């Protein structure tokens, strides 16, 4: 009964090989044909962040609920804030959960009620998008901006992540960044929105070309013209930073003058890019 009798042929096969090009798509399509996804890619980042926030909230005790988390807000107020913005999206895609009178108690509602209302709304939004009944490229309004549903869902995922990390930090827990497959679309949307916003708030840069290099899993490289004038092709400035640092900057959790980065080209353009990025955080103005 030879131990390795069956393996002689194996030694003739090269140890290194890779799946044929296109295998990834074929495998995923075959799997999805057998069991359709209930959480499609477009809403998966939001679904995961909502799930993670729910896990963090489950662990909060009375002292945890009372502790300031960010901007002097308690965790209850953070959840109420996320809920309000989720409702703004849900209302425009037919996923609004009717608010109960108990949840209408404004800032006086008990944390359990606030969490319950937020969770129900989050689940309804995921279900609605998962049922393929939402036109993802239709524009909706969020915080005075017009953006496609798919971008709004990424924005909700992003903000849920940033605020979940706020709560983790208040509890002395390690941050929990999204997996790279979710970070990638968030970073992509962030870079594009940033360069578009630069054209609006710093019109003197219109037509100039910016290169953004985000390092690490989920990062990438973008070369984009600042809208508003005919652009050249060569970058006028290049900004290089870690993809997570970029996201924290966009989330208002990094100082634009201190965030670790490298740059080349026009220093004014780079400084404005960083400053506009840090100004994306709208927490203090959205529910005042």
């Amino acid at each position, binding site marked *: 009964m030879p131990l390795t009798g069956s393996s002689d042929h194996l030694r003739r096969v090269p140890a290194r090989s890779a*799946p044929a090009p296109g295998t990834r798509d074929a495998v995923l399509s075959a799997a999805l044909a057998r069991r359709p*996804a209930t959480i499609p890619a477009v809403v998966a980042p939001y679904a995961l962040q909502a799930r993670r926030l729910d896990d963090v909230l489950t662990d909060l005790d009375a002292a945890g609920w009372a502790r300031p988390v960010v901007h002097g807000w308690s965790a209850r107020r953070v959840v109420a804030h996320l809920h309000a913005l989720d409702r703004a999206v849900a209302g425009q895609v037919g996923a609004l959960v009717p608010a109960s009178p108990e949840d209408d108690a404004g800032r006086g509602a008990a944390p359990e009620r606030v969490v319950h209302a937020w969770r129900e709304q989050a689940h309804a939004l995921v279900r609605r998008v998962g049922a393929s009944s939402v036109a993802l490229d239709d524009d909706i309004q969020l915080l005075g901006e017009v953006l496609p549903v798919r971008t709004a869902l990424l924005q909700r995922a992003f903000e849920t992540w940033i605020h979940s990390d706020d709560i983790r930090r208040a509890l002395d827990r390690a941050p929990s960044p999204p997996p790279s497959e979710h970070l990638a679309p968030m970073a992509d949307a962030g870079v594009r929105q940033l360069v578009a916003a630069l054209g609006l708030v710093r019109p003197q840069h219109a037509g100039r070309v910016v290169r953004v290099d985000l390092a690490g899993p989920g990062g990438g490289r973008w070369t984009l013209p600042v809208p508003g004038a005919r652009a050249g092709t060569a970058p006028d400035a290049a900004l290089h930073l870690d993809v997570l640092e970029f996201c924290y900057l966009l989330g208002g959790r990094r100082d634009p003058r201190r965030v670790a980065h490298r740059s080349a080209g026009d220093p004014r353009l780079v400084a404005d890019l960083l400053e506009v990025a840090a100004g994306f955080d709208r927490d203090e103005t959205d529910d005042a």
Partner: protein
Amino acid sequence: MDEATTDPADDELRRRLIDGDETALGRVYDLHGPYLHRIAVRLTGNRTAADDVLQEVLCSLWQHPEAFDPERGTLRRWLSTLAHRRSVDLVRREASGLRRLRLAGADPSVPTLSSTVAPEETAVASVLGAQVRRAVASLPGPQRRAVYLAYFEGLSYRQVAEALGIPEGTAKSRLRLGLHRLSSLLAAKGITSCP
């Protein structure tokens, strides 16, 4: 599994797969697909067959994610066990097809898959049958898994080590200990030699 440590990332991936999150499946492919494919290529000797193995393994995970138990080992190890099993099944099916062709007097062209696994399995099953399986089942867990993979799945030392996520030397010593114990168990039942 004894060598396993629970990976929180595996826990979350399992939960996402159960929820039906398609990006979790993409993540599994990116993390483990190339590794599983290499295992399948080594076992089947055929890249197209390896593509099929990879597809079947990931479809199986997507359809039954709850079958993976993070308490018993990492996702990588679970998937490599599935890849081994499916690869060996494929080789056996191909081998029996070739034998049928030969019996029918056909002249098969160069086989695309190895035909060397099935005879030992058949011999073990038919000659020693249930007694050997019972004896193997009574071995301590680490030895049982190593012996099972080597004899019933037809893997080499190296592949046993890979499947169990242990060094090759450890795989050898487990097999040695397992075989020693197995021969004692079989001797006690009056079986003194293997065919």
